[in-house]
């Protein structure tokens, strides 16, 4: 986060430091782009852990900064591809933001949503997403063993269907950036 703040103010930094910061950030962004181009779902993730959707969104945020400081279209395409994944271009078929998409999560691990007497969950939450470690497997029956499909839309699934502030944060950044640039 600190580096991202500095990247937003490159012209106020010592020129040598600004150049090295920019170079290192673009190296990271290029590694992400390379991986996006090598994975069939066009994301830069092949390890699906707790909160994997936030890993995808955080990578999108890194690419958004790369686009902001270079203006290069390829980075913006990368942001779009990661966002496509979150909204349904993924192995589960779910759109991972509550209230949005044709097949959104209906039973997030979010007590107010479960207890309010309304069928739909509170809209606007990114759920964790596929997590191959299935730390909740004693209370949740998973339909698939494949890491990228280890997601269950049930309230008990704290390991794949939890909601969290730090998972929504990159979603806000990325969606805001896309609205601003399109």
């Amino acid at each position, binding site marked *: 986060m600190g580096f991202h703040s500095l990247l937003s103010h490159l012209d106020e930094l010592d020129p040598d430091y600004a150049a090295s910061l920019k170079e290192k950030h673009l190296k990271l962004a290029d590694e992400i782009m390379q991986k996006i181009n090598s*994975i*069939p*779902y*066009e994301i830069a993730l*092949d390890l*699906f852990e707790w909160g994997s959707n936030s890993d995808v969104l955080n990578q999108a945020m890194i690419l958004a900064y790369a686009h902001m400081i270079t203006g290069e279209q390829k980075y*913006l*395409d990368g942001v*779009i*591809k990661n*966002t*496509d994944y979150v*909204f*349904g*271009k*993924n*192995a*589960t*078929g*779910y*759109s991972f*933001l509550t*209230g*949005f*998409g*044709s*097949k959104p999560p209906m039973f997030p691990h*979010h007590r*107010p949503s479960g207890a309010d007497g309304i069928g739909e969950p*509170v*809209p*606007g*939450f*990114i759920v964790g997403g596929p997590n191959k470690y299935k730390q909740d497997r004693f209370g949740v029956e998973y*339909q*698939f063993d*494949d*890491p*990228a*499909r280890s997601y269950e839309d049930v309230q008990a699934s704290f390991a794949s269907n939890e*909601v*969290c*502030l730090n998972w*929504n944060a990159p*979603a*806000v950044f990325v*969606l*805001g950036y*896309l*609205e601003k640039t*399109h």
Partner: protein
Amino acid sequence: MKYFLLLISLQLSFFGLMSQSPERPNPIRLNQIGYYPTSAKNFVLADVQAKSFTVVNSKNKRVFKGELIDKGTWEPSGERIMLGNFSGLKKPGVYTISIEGVEPSYQFEIKKGLYHDALDASIKSFTIIY
């Protein structure tokens, strides 16, 4: 006859529950919100082999035809993945993707302001207890 059909359908749903077969999502995996008019537009076809796809507008008219690219099997999902691209379609509207032998995709939109509501809701979630 009515009762007979009801009985059959009850039995089918009973066996459906019993067999516990994994629920298969629509094999056409796309951004269910949609795409910006000017953005890259890609989708995945999972575990189905096909050569081409069309994009159909809300008047059921084909407005785009494209080829699918075989990306092979992706180990983390165990699926055989094909990739389709329709970035050339830029006209705002409501569309579905159509592929022979596959149920149609969900409807999606091409429009400006695509994520306006999603952005609003994701910000608003910070005012709600997590």
